């Protein structure tokens, strides 16, 4: 699965730590998500989409990591 997490975070000028705090996860978790090494659960994916005020499919897309 691919995602736009890094771009969305950069647009808001948040650090990985800031995003981690907003989502209630660790900074390592954000890093693993951004590098595409870890696919989140549906629950976390929805939480991320809600935080960015987007639809889940606007943040996460099917397919291999670029």
């Amino acid at each position, binding site marked *: 699965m691919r995602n736009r997490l890094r771009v969305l975070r950069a647009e808001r000028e948040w650090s990985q730590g800031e995003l981690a*705090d907003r989502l209630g*996860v*660790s900074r390592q*978790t954000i*890093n*693993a998500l951004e*590098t595409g*090494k*870890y696919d*989140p659960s549906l629950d976390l994916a929805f939480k991320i989409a809600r935080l960015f005020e987007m639809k889940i499919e606007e943040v996460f897309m099917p397919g291999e990591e670029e």
Partner: protein
Amino acid sequence: MASPNPTTRANRQYARSFILTMGLYVVTLPFAVGFVNILPEGDPLRYLIILVPVLPLLATLVVFMRWLRRVDEFQRKVQFEGFAFSMAVTIIVTLTLGFLERAGFPKLDTLWIPIMMIFLWGIGVAIANGRYR
């Protein structure tokens, strides 16, 4: 100040509680061993005293399980991979040694098994962390 991030909060509380319970273990162990050596052989009190350090270990188990339930899903996945690695290698090593003992290899103290498991768990977590970096 308490962090609003539940994972950070869980990590901090875990670190504090772990230091406390393992500190109790480190303190009670030499006392228990010392007392047992004073008491005459066959005294049932020896069994009771040598089991005292197990109490802080049980407290550490509670602390660890509480931490594991409170950290985020990715951290739990990393820990799971660490346990899986540790368990698999421990099974292979202990089975191999068991076979060797059947062939006459000297019997080893079982106390090294938990030490090896903890060491392997650390390696497993490091491998998992490296894979997801």
